[in-house]
């Protein structure tokens, strides 16, 4: 299996104005391979978001090395990092981070603005279609439900055809049904070969991943394949049956 991103003894330390430095991530070595759907689990403050930022080249480690697609990230300057993020990584955030008063289509086009690609509208439309939102492309975020907004964000993450999608608590602001819909979408993308990393503190969400990494206090506590992968589609079906039974 091809390794997409790999860390070697990565440590991230935050120095507050005064007082003891905070080790958000300590000596973490991990590799994410192509085709995985990885859940990074941990309580709040465990360092899982910091690890995700480092995996996504949004942040640099204080110590240790990061390799993305074989390139050593530490050696890249800010401009090249921006390029790497643009081409190889798609981000999904807990709060969706869509531009207000801007259509779904234009939100999805955003990463393409900073690429050299042509036909940005066509690519954005395709991405929206993959996220199941083609008919909503001209709606503004304010006119969409939370689940729909997150799907716009997923379309935006997909539009550059990245090596890997990183999602930070993607269901944190969603109701149960929308959460299942998002996870079902992630599982479907994963079935088609997409690599995804989902940061979550909910064991329920992690149970849809193929692999679960548990972080505690900045260190990896457990890392292994998920023996009981659940299907979000089944949960959705169950929910639908329940509603119909009523």
């Amino acid at each position, binding site marked *: 299996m091809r390794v997409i991103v790999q860390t070697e003894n990565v440590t991230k330390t935050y120095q507050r104005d005064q007082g003891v430095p905070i080790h958000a991530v300590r000596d973490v070595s991990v590799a994410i391979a192509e085709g995985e759907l990885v859940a990074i689990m941990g309580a709040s403050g465990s360092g899982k978001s910091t690890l995700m*930022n480092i995996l*996504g080249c*949004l*942040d640099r480690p204080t110590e240790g090395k990061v390799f993305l697609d074989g390139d050593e990230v530490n050696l890249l300057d*800010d*401009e090249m990092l*921006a*390029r790497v*993020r*643009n*081409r190889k990584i798609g*981000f999904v*955030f807990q709060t969706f*981070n869509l*531009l*207000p*008063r*801007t259509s779904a289509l*234009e939100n999805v086009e*955003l*990463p*393409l*603005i*900073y*690429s*050299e690609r042509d036909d*940005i509208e066509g690519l954005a439309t395709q991405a929206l279609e993959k996220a199941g939102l083609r008919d909503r492309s001209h709606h503004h975020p304010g006119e969409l439900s939370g689940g729909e907004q997150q799907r716009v964000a997923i379309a*935006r993450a997909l539009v*550059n055809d990245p090596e890997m999608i990183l999602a930070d608590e993607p269901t944190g602001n969603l109701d149960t049904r929308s959460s299942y819909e998002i996870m079902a979408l992630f599982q479907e993308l994963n079935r088609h070969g997409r690599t995804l990393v989902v940061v979550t503190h909910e064991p329920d969400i992690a149970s849809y991943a193929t692999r679960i990494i548990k972080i505690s206090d900045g260190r990896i506590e457990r890392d292994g394949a998920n023996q009981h992968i659940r299907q979000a589609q089944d949960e959705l079906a169950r929910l639908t049956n329940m509603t119909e039974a009523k």
Partner: protein
Amino acid sequence: MKTARIARSAFKGLGRNKLRTFLMMIGIVIGIAAVTVVVSAGLGAQKRVMERVKKFGLESLMVFAGGGREMGPTSGQPVVTLKVDDAEALERNIRAIAGVAPFNRKGEGTVNYQGKSINTGIWGVTPSWAPVWDWYAAQGEFISEEDEAQMARVCVIAPTVQQELFGGANPVGEQVRIGNVLFEIKGIMQPRGTSPRGGDMDNRVYIPLSTFMRRVANVDYLTGIKVRLRSIKNMEQTVAAMQPLLRERHKLAPGEPDDFRIITPTEVRQVAAKIAGTFNIFLVLVAGISLIVGGFVITNIMLISVSERRGEIGLRKAVGARSRDIRLQFLLETMVVTLTGGVIGILLGFVGAAILRAVTQMPVSLSWEGAALGVVFSSLVGLIAGTQPAKRAATLQPVEALRA
């Protein structure tokens, strides 16, 4: 391609926030409108100055009787030392002089025609007046050598006088009364407009100098001598030659001040420019200050906008915007605002200048230079005002920005 996309994205951002954009723009609109009005008025004044200098004649000098610094004849006791002989001596002795036109005048005189009257300047001039001023009779004839020799009771009137006394009718051959003496009208002068000092050069009556001196005013001295040079180049040397000649003729001892003044076009221009230009400096200052204030307002609003849009900046960086892409976006936003404001300001300024001209009769000149200046100024303000906010936006770390 990429830059164009970023520009489009910046432009859309402005459209999404119309109130903010409007508030940013309004200061620049007012500032540029003010600059446009001031520049238009200034150019108008300058144009008027140049017209006046041209009327004075670029290759002409004026010798006035009496010393002192004011332009034109001194008030109070008339100075009696400048004579017709002086004019002849100048023409005879200084080769650079092409012609002289000695004159005397009465500032206020009454001219009557069949119960109508007009207060006008009465000028005693020689036939050389016309070629020296390059100013001729439009109808009829100017004063001739014969008229001068015979102290003839003839006159040439200027258009304002004609309009007042005769309306549109042709007055050549009619008799008018100047004081108590009847004069026959020989001709009508070409219109000349306003003098460098702002007087109406078309409200005059010309009579032969000899007639003026003997029959009207009973004097033997002149008000001044208009001198025409062969070439504009010899102005300085000619003045330098004229001064000792006149001093010698007037028997002035060394150290005694001149009893005459020689006025050149340079001095005419300076005086006229002073009259026209004094208030402009003040107005330019006011306009400049309003632009600076507008710039500060823009910087302030953009800085607020940057902290408000941290999330957007973080997102853009996360999806691949480089620092310079962000800087470009915010700089473009500011510059689009100021440029648009500038263009609106220029249009408003043109309207304002047109109103100013209609209401105050001030000379106003709408020019593309003024418009270009407005565009340059507003872009400059945008560039300066936008630099700091754009820099702040560009240097935000993506993780920090996304946390907000």
